[in-house]
């Protein structure tokens, strides 16, 4: 296995806010990697930094994709290298039809045959998009928009796919469906880096999990191991560790990962 993406010690600032405090990460080809963490831990910031969406960031550190440095490059360039990004909150083109949205996903491609094949592939993953082909994307439901956003990112036929909170604002059933499809996409050969709050779902489909807190990784392991871990269970999966005789938790485990 080779490292598709290699992040070394990046630090990112939002003007004065120190958001990423030295993050290193390697994504193996063919795997699903999940980054878990609380609100504001900096999960999305990692993806945005790698995509080049934050001006003049990362402040320090290097990012390599396919063995080439991509830190400080524009997203337009990075996307062309085969890295697709499904942003948080979907960000579909509201006033373009579903079909046009997908077409924009294939904006950088020239091979008509391949594009047509990918269209069919995506309609196979998400049949509802085919039904709504001519509809404005803004009129779709949240779940459909999420499917569209994933489909649009896949139209670029990426080697590596970034997913930022695909479960955001979706019903539990939809979340399960979407994660199932994410796993399928991975089996078809797309490497995936996933950022999630829904730790249970994310660990269930991922191979490797990392936990981010206050802009640092505090834990890394096989997803199966992480699921067994007491701390992870309590802090990220909402399981209680111990109850008193009266039936409520009298004390809370606190852990500082330092």
């Amino acid at each position, binding site marked *: 296995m080779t490292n598709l993406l290699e992040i070394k010690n990046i630090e990112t600032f939002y003007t004065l806010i120190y958001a990423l405090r030295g993050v290193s990460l390697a994504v193996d080809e063919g795997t699903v990697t999940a980054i878990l963490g609380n609100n504001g831990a900096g999960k999305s910031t990692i993806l945005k930094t790698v995509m080049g*969406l934050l001006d003049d960031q990362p402040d320090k550190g290097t990012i390599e994709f396919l063995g080439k440095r991509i830190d400080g490059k524009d997203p*337009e360039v990075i*996307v062309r290298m085969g890295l697709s990004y499904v*942003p948080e909150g979907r960000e*579909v*083109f*509201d006033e*373009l039809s579903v079909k*046009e949205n997908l077409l924009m996903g294939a*904006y950088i491609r020239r091979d008509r045959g391949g594009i047509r094949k990918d269209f069919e592939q995506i309609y196979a993953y998400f049949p509802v998009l085919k039904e709504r082909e001519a509809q404005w994307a803004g009129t779709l439901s949240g779940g459909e928009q999420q499917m569209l956003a994933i489909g649009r990112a896949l139209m670029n036929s990426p080697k590596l796919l970034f997913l930022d909170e695909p479960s955001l604002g979706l019903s539990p059933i939809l979340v399960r469906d979407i994660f199932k499809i994410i796993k399928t996409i991975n089996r078809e050969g797309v490497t995936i880096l996933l950022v999630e709050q829904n730790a249970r779902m994310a660990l269930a489909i991922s191979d490797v999990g990392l936990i981010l807190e206050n802009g640092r990784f505090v834990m890394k392991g096989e997803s199966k191991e992480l699921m067994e871990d007491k701390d992870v269970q309590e802090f990220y999966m909402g399981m209680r560790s111990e109850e008193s005789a009266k039936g409520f938790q009298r004390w809370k485990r606190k852990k500082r990962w330092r």
Partner: protein
Amino acid sequence: MFLQLVVSGLSFGSLYALIALAMVIIYKTSEVPNFGQGEMAMISTFVAFTLLVTHGYSFAVSFIGAFIFAAALGVFLEFVFLRRAKDPNILSLILITLGFQMVLYGLASWKWGADQKDFPFPVSDFDVINIGSAVISYLNIATLLITLFLMFMLFLFFRYTKVGIAMKATQQNAMAARINGIRTNRIMSITWALSSMIGAVAGMLLAPIATLDPNLMLEPLLKGFAAAVLGGMTTLVGAALGGYILGVIENLFGGYISLEFKSIVAFLIIVLVLCFKPSGLFAKHYVRKV
């Protein structure tokens, strides 16, 4: 009388529609009404005039030359000034476009002088045909046809070409456009070039009716802006319709009420629209649920 007023109103209206379209195209991408639009068109018209009269080139060569100049001017202004604005807000961008207007106006006055010139045009303004009781000149017919043709081309462009769709995508969500590999800066340049060329068409169609001098586009620009506000600053179709409506209303007002106050109609319409339907008559904008 009524038919006559409507027909010539439509002819003027199509010029307003062109200017409105030019403004709306830029407004949708940059979110700034470009008040330099009129002067950009005026300078392009002067370039056509110079090629035509001073250098004696044919109509085709001169007009194509003027279009190339217009496109280059649009790209230049966007690239050199608007893109440099650091952390721009709408007001400062509007001020920049007002700056364009003044600079270009001064430039034209300095280069070509303030005296009025006759702009030759291949279609005559004096030969007329009769439709019922109305009289319409060849030039007016040409204006109408050229405008409709341009609008149709624009429609096809935004509907079926990849660049056209990418332009709409950039207008709707620039970040999402970038992560799909759309070079938004380049789209911005294309937008300005396109808009500037549409403006130039309006200038060159207007110049033979009026006379060519640096004041050529002052009033039409405001009318075009009014038309865009009337139709809705966010829709191309609305802006075009707004142009025609404004042209006809204005002409009817001039014919039946007062010729002297014809010009205030445009401003009256701006005020009324902003009071009662600020989004414009035809804006069917998808409103995102929060």
